[in-house]
């Protein structure tokens, strides 16, 4: 009979009207600035560069400016210039570092391919999403200093993944140490010192980095409070 | 009383004259609506309450809609301005109208009209009794005319092939 479907529809909306007062499944709004979204661990937005420590981010960047991400980035939003010199990294080993590392977040499409192709676990996806700039071009072009964030921050936003990465890096380091120790033992036996094995291992793309050194300072779980992400400099 | 009536007469007459003179058909129709509203107010002032409301209901609510609909259907989306009437036609018309006007005016103003007290308004119930009593046959006839007009209007306005294309 005419009207049955209409009444059925009215019943559904009435159920939802009443349900919105007692049933959380029928009242799904989260009021954003007061209620912050619970981001899943996998959530990604724009990339950042991992540095081992918070107090000297530029000195302890994991990035060795191998430029794989620059090459693989589909929208080509990464720009890297290699350094002419070498500086000691977190483990004290001399490394090429990115003299310029810039990501144009206006172009970046958050696809995470740079993270996937990075052999050094040096670039990871950030979860900071409330980003705004008054300057359309300069304000969204992030440079090395703005991109660098400590490993502790990485642990904070992607705990599982970061723990895996640290574990892997530590394992690789242990393996490298073992190798170095064996090499050293061999060297002790042999008359002439060889090039440190670790340096050879750090060649881009060849293998996972295995920086030689006795300890990995930030490899363990973070102990100090994580500094907030670096404030964005005012746009010119 | 006379002053009020005179003002209302102007409210009624000015839009009516304007309606006949403007070029734009839509403006013309809307001015007619204004004139009809003025006329309804005039009826109200004269004391014919029921007639006033019926007049407003039929003319403003019904006739004006039909007129506007016809205007839109016959000139959709176009400037609804009309060409000015030819001078010859205008002249002829105006001569005829001024003759009628002078005839009417003279007959009104040179006739001595009886001046009696205004009749008190008729109660609505009395009107109903009149309609249902002595004028019942007329009422039914009017109803018949309306029905016939409705059907006739439908038949006239209906497209020749009503179900051409689509099943709307």
């Amino acid at each position, binding site marked *: 009979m005419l009207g049955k479907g209409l009444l059925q*529809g009215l019943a559904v909306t009435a159920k939802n009207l009443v349900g919105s007062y007692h049933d959380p499944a029928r*009242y799904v709004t989260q009021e954003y600035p007061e209620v912050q979204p619970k981001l899943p661990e996998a959530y990604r937005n724009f990339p950042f560069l991992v540095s081992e420590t918070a107090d000297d981010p530029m000195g302890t960047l994991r990035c060795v400016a191998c430029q794989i991400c620059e090459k693989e980035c589909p929208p080509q939003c990464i720009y890297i210039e290699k350094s002419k010199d070498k500086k000691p990294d977190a483990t004290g080993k001399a490394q090429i570092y990115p003299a310029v590392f810039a990501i144009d977040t206006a172009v970046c499409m958050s696809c995470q391919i740079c993270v996937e192709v990075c052999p050094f676990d040096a670039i990871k996806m950030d979860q900071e999403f409330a980003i705004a700039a008054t300057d359309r071009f300069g304000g969204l072009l992030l440079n090395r200093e703005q991109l660098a964030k400590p490993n502790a921050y990485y642990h904070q936003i992607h705990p599982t993944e970061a723990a895996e990465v640290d574990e892997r890096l530590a394992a690789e380091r242990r393996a490298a140490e073992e190798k170095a120790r064996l090499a050293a033992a061999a060297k002790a036996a042999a008359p002439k010192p060889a090039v440190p094995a670790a340096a050879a291992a750090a060649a881009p793309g060849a293998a996972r980095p295995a920086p030689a050194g006795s300890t990995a300072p930030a490899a363990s779980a973070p102990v100090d409070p994580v500094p907030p992400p670096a404030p964005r400099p005012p746009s010119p | 009383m006379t002053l009020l009536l005179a003002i209302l007469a102007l409210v009624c007459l000015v839009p009516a004259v304007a309606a006949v003179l403007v070029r734009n058909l839509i403006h013309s129709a809307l001015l007619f609506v204004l004139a009809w509203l003025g006329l309804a107010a005039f009826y109200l002032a004269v004391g014919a309450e029921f007639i006033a*409301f019926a007049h407003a209901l039929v003319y403003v609510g019904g006739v004006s809609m039909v007129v506007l609909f016809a205007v839109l259907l016959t000139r959709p989306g176009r400037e609804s301005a009309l060409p000015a009437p030819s001078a010859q036609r205008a002249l002829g018309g105006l001569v005829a109208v001024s003759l009628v006007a002078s005839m009417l005016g003279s007959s009104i103003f040179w006739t001595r009209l009886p001046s009696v007290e205004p009749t008190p308004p008729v109660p*609505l119930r009395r009107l109903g009794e009149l309609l249902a009593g002595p004028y019942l046959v007329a009422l039914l006839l009017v109803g018949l005319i309306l029905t016939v007009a409705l059907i006739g209007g439908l038949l006239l306005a209906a497209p020749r092939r009503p179900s051409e294309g689509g099943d709307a």
Partner: protein
Amino acid sequence: MILAAAAPASPADAWLERAPLLLRDALTGWLPDALRPWVAALLSIATILGVFGLLFAYMTLAERKILGRIQNRPGPNRTGPFGLLQPFADAIKALTKEDIVPRAADQVLHFLAPVVLVALSLIGLAVIPFGRNLVAVELEASVLYFFAAGAATELSIFMAGWASRNKYSLLAAMRALAQLISYEVPLLLSMVPVVVVAGSLSTTGIVAAQGGWAAGVWPHWHALTPWGFSAFGVFMVAALAESNRSPFDLPEAESELIAGHLTEYSGFKYALFFMAEYLGMAALSAMGVTLFLGGWQAPLAVLEFIPSYVWFGMKLLLLLLGFIWIRATFPRLRIDQLTRLSWKFLVPLALVNLVNGGLWAVTSDWTGAAGVARWVVSALLVVVPFVVLGRSLTAGYGPRTYRYASP
């Protein structure tokens, strides 16, 4: 002026019941006799404007809140506690917005349309009895006045649509006219049996005719008789259409015509249209309450201690809630379906109802078994046409069964 008795004999004498009138008398009492009716009239106008202005403001809020709740979201809740200041924020926004008039538009009509619409939506309220003895203008043919006043509302929608010189607006104007022509008829026809049964064309007379209770519990409201129920349904559907509310919001038709006749309106003029929509809705609902739901009459004798205007307000709000609920639920009709619904369903139903109401009026003195028969006949005269007409209306439509492809 009668002094309030210690124990009021009838509810009409209760202090609360007479409070508005007492207030009016107190305000106008010191004036010379010649001025008093004028000031009283102005007071009624101010009261209606104030009450219905506020009602409009909070109707918009309530609509958004209820719509929100139905859609599992909170609705506006940022401006003031529970968003209660939202209407005022909206008003300030509308007032300060730039008023844009297209260069090609018919400037005069473009300006006049919203003004005329608001004015026409308001004047109908003059004859609604909001409570016992609370009516601004007492007219012998007030029902007719109300519909005459309301008849021109679509005219201003047409004006808005045509004057905007926008193709969407023009389509909206045509739709508005078709809609008006179609729904004025059932609106008026559904009102006629009420007039026949109540034997009065005045709103106060119709409300008075609905006073009293059968067996003390069953009010003599027209909506509670079979013919009245049917007429009430037809009236409310036509009222929905007359006030351009979903599912009959064809002139506006957001998903088809952008905003229809409102496409070229902004700022305060847009707000005026908005206001007129709600005022028209409130006026038609008030008329519905008056004609069918007993006006200000209490539903039960024991509840008469609650003042009559409160009852009226509650019924009005109930109907308005229904408008919102319907809007939240239904999609829009198409223009041909809209007119078909009117001419092939509502009008025949209302015509049958006319006979039904006439029979009811003729048989008003039947009691006992004859009384029961009267109810049965009346109910049959509602149900049978409804089923038959409904079936013909929905012919060709219906739920379908589906097959599955054989693998």
